[in-house]
């Protein structure tokens, strides 16, 4: 990085030197240059970065991570909650897949996730998640922003705002999303936080970061053009030496220029070994699969990106299996091996200790049938899991009742989930605030408790 464009770098420094007016402004100027500079957390963090894996549409708890033998037995017999938006009573539907214990801890996971099941010794499973709304839109917004109706900053934006980022040549918050989920870009929007903190959406394939590729016809001229603009800016700045915004803007062009090189490199997996690729189930040349996305998440985490999110499916073709639970199978197949590979890879590289991996969905599914063989939306309980980053490995936290229709023990509400994640990153969720429209806002609004039982 240091060999890049000494002229522009020099331009900034010399402009500063010219402004001997207020030497004290120098430090202010440096700070203004770098609004995403790493900031101190409230206390020593266990995790330094987050990889957030989101499964869209409502993953069934009783078919994946929450075994319910009694529900197998009660198939069709009693009335349970069913329906989509309707919540009417329907006959119970037995889970489609058998459960088996995984790892030394023996946490039971269904046959939908055979690879992930083997990683349960590293996973801190939560079977008692709970949310407040049975519509996709509201629940998806809530798991990302803590707000069910109004748009608010995403958890990734909050962490970018609270902690800054370690690599200024990449965005602090990257979202890998081939398709948009419910509530669209609101799930990774900065909302009222400054725009530095918005999730930068990356599209697997051709051009991951918007506008990061120079226009072909003029690419060779770009350095000249930046140089000319820089000379203009230097002159302009010299007469306005105390204006930190102007200097900061000069700096963004330097960063942008380096991003053109660094971002494509971060997204290029060609130098990864065959062993690594096969861990994720990626074939050489692939630049799109979920496995590729997980591998990219690791590469971005390695390069200091604070928060990486992968959204596995869109608002239309996803885990929302109303008619037939069989629709879970291809999706599970798509994400199972790559996620297991990601956990293995992070651990091998010693990154799992300070990287928090989160897998979640927006809500669970009903014990009762919806369509002939499917399940409805179910906010009362669902399963999510955490791994690494100071979480307690090899446990299954919380319990639901016999048919997974309500939380029986140790409820973890969305707000508690958020409070706990912030805690792992060294942040007191009640103290991370931003003043907006006359009020201090928090990710957790006025709720949330850190769930001690999930901490190592």
């Amino acid at each position, binding site marked *: 990085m240091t060999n890049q464009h000494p002229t522009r770098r020099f331009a900034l420094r010399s402009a500063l030197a010219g402004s001997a007016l207020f030497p004290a402004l120098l430090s202010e100027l440096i700070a203004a240059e770098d609004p995403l500079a790493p900031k101190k957390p409230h206390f020593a963090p266990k995790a330094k970065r987050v990889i957030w894996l989101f499964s869209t549409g409502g993953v069934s708890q009783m078919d994946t991570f929450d075994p319910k033998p009694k529900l197998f037995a009660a198939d069709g017999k009693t009335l349970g909650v069913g329906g989509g938006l309707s919540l009417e009573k329907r006959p119970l539907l037995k889970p489609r897949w058998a459960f088996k214990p995984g790892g030394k801890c023996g946490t039971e996971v269904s046959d939908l996730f055979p690879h992930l099941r083997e990683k349960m010794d590293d996973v801190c499973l939560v079977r008692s998640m709970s949310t407040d709304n049975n519509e996709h839109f509201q629940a998806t917004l809530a798991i990302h922003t803590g707000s069910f109706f109004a748009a608010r900053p995403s958890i990734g934006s909050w962490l970018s705002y609270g902690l800054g980022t370690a690599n200024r040549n990449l965005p602090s918050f990257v979202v890998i999303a081939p398709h948009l989920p419910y509530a669209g*870009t609101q799930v990774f929007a900065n909302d009222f936080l400054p725009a530095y903190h918005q999730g930068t959406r990356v599209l697997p394939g051709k051009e991951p970061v*918007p506008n990061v590729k120079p226009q072909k016809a003029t690419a060779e*001229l770009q350095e000249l*053009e930046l140089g*000319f603009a820089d000379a203009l*800016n230097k002159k302009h700045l010299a007469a306005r030496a105390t204006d930190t915004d102007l200097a900061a803007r000069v700096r963004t062009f330097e*960063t942008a220029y380096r991003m053109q090189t660094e971002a494509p490199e971060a997204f290029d997996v060609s130098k990864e070994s065959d062993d690594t690729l096969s861990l994720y189930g990626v074939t050489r040349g692939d630049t799109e699969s979920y496995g590729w996305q997980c591998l990219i998440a690791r590469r971005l985490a390695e390069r200091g990106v604070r928060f990486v999110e992968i959204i596995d499916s869109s608002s*239309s073709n996803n885990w929302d299996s109303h008619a037939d639970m069989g629709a879970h199978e291809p999706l599970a197949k798509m994400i199972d091996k790559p996620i297991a590979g990601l956990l293995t890879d992070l651990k091998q590289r010693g990154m799992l200790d300070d990287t928090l991996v989160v897998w979640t969905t927006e809500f669970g599914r009903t014990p009762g049938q919806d369509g002939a063989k499917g399940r409805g939306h179910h906010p009362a309980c669902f399963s999510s899991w955490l791994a690494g980053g100071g979480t307690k490995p090899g446990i299954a936290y919380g319990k639901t009742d016999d048919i997974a229709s309500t939380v029986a023990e140790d409820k973890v509400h969305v707000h508690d989930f958020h409070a706990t994640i912030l805690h792992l990153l060294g942040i007191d969720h009640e103290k991370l605030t931003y003043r907006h429209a006359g009020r201090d806002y928090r990710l957790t609004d006025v709720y949330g408790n850190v769930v001690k039982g999930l901490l190592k």
Partner: protein
Amino acid sequence: MLRVALLALVFAVAPARADEPKPPPEQIEFFENKVRPVLVKHCYECHSAESKKLKGELRLDTRAGVHAGGSSGPAVVPGKPAESLLIKSVKHAAGVEPMPPKEKLSAEAIADLEAWVKMGAPDPRTGDAGTRKIDIEKGKQFWSFKPVTRPNVPRTKFATANAIDAFVRSKLEAQNLSPSPRADKRVLIRRVTFDLIGLPPTPEEIDAFVTDDSPRAFEKVVDRLLASTHYGERWGRHWMDVIRYADTAGDNSDYPIPQNYRFRNWIIDAFNADLPFNEFVRQQIAGDLLPAKDEADRRAKLIATGYIANTKRFGSYEDDRYPWHLTYEDQIDNLGRAFLGVTMGCCRCHDHKFDPLTQADYYALYGFFSSTRYPRPGIELDKVQRDFVPLASAAEVAAFEKERKAKQDELDARVKARTTEWRAAEKELTALDAKKDSPDHKEQVAALNKRIEELKRQQRAAQAESEKHAKQPVPFETAYAVAEGKTAGKHRVGNARMQLKGDPERLGAEVPRRFPEVLGASKLPEGTEGSGRLHLANWLADARNPLTARVFVNRVWHWQFGRGIVRTASNFGALGEPPTHPELLDWLASEFVSHNWSVKHLHRLIVLSHTYQQSSADNEAALKRDAGNALWWRFDRRRLDAESVRDALLATSGALDRVPGGPHPFPEAKTWNFTQHHPFKAVYETNKRSVYLMTQRFARHPFLALFDGADTNASTERRITSTTPLQALYLMNDPFVHAQAKALAARVQKDADTDAARVRRAYELLFARTPTADEVTAATAYVEKLRAKLSAQAAWESLARALYMSNEFVYLD
């Protein structure tokens, strides 16, 4: 600290009541032996005068506290344990918070409490309910709730003719500071042109101003700009920020509202026509209820109520499950911020924690909106527009409705007749069954069946025609506007009831519709029929209302200077900032009102002041004393907002389409099938000004999102200015910027003959100044160097891109 002390004054303790009859001795004994000990042991920790933090605003250590209850309502209903919250919560009944939170009381203690409530909850304890109640009279003493005054213009050492300068100068002089000199003419015309019309000045306009030595030279520029139709496009956009304008509804599928462009254009036209601001307010709240000069005026006033119509929609349901309370909350929150500069959203659930605004004030306003018929733009479970307002005369609409009904009646009668015929034929068939012996039975049945088939077909055709007619859209243009609510049924015109803790399922007392108490509590006159919105509009637009004029003149100041006299433009409450120049603010407000609320008059006052025309250059002494420029010793430099950056790119390249925008190219309404699974989402490209870009509630236009455009979900009181590498990448690589560079290159080559003249042209277009000799040399050398290898056009394009990336292009001195 002083602020906190002042705040405390606003609140006082509710008076005690001493008129309760004394309970009989045996009941007092029961209370003392069985009840008081339980309350002391299990409840007082959180619900008494000794509580570190009083929970749920509930005190159980006084009789008054028990009866008044807390935020969930009274704790007991004397004589009715089953209905008493206290009993329900100690019994851990469904739907109430279980108490005590950690451990359930013994069955015996619960039985005692029940028995006590049953005997009427006798209670000898005295003392008040002890929860804080807002003292409205004290609240009125807060600066922003006091009447607007007309302060005397201060005398300053340097005499000045402009009152604004006198107010600003007197504060500067008190700090031994003086204003900065007047900015260079070129700086000034660039500043005022972007400020008033949102576009860069043309080289011809600059030249005319620079060569005009008359004392009225600048005034002429200002008058020209205020008369330009681009003025409304610029200032209308400011207002659109405040009222969170959008072309879609914001429900889970974000339904398009193709008609809403009319309201957008109404805002723009209103600014252009200098519609008095009080009238501007009145029409947005109650345009449908105001008298009209003629048909065109009536239509315009109907369209103006788009302000109310354009409130956010939520969820997916159309039926009884639609969460109207959230739409009204968005409405009241925006009304408070936009017109009054107060935050009222929190009063949905409880009295305001810092301002003298109560939950009752909130539901007093709620009644106006629940009495209003909102148009419904379509939603997942009902994908059609309903209750849009026809833009036709009442007579035309009535005539059409009459004709439509007559036709409908005729079609329905035909359906009925066909049905009767068909049924009769079916009966004949049944009758035939009894005559199986008849020789031609088979033939008869066959013939009859044939007839039945024919009659069935006819019946179905009639039915289809009738249904088609019923669904026919009205043959008039419509507006996304409101009307008076229904007079019968569940949702009808009338007062609203309080919602305990903001829960629409838990209704409290009815609250008469009125203005907030601290603003005078104006009430509807006896016998008011309808929603009463016209009265609300008049209260808002009343010159005696201390907030409306103050808030708006401060906004204008904020938009012209980059920050307001009150920094928190939409919060004039205790958590907002106090004004830096309170006398100036009041003087401006009173001047504004006495000049018939003319916004253009206000602009002239401001831009013709020296305060506005000052240079933005550094001044070492002043920086040391007032680094933040709180006293306005200079003009604040600022980055152009998102729309201005985009419009300046288009204007300088020559590609700008200056014709006002009309409707957006939305898909046809009959094809709408948007759901939360497949929400509406579109970006429509145009070379028109950015105010005409389609604005989606859900997602900002990519360019506006990148350059800090308005929040499309909530009121934006000020634009933030972020500076990110993604913005740099946009200017470096986006095809839109490259297209403008290409057009600019062609333009300067066409406009001038020599390289030097072309460079001068480019600098004048982009920076409103002539380049120095050095700059001309550098730029021509740059072009020459490239031209040796590439085409002339390519060389100029490259220079154009470099100029577009410079700070000078996007910053205003």
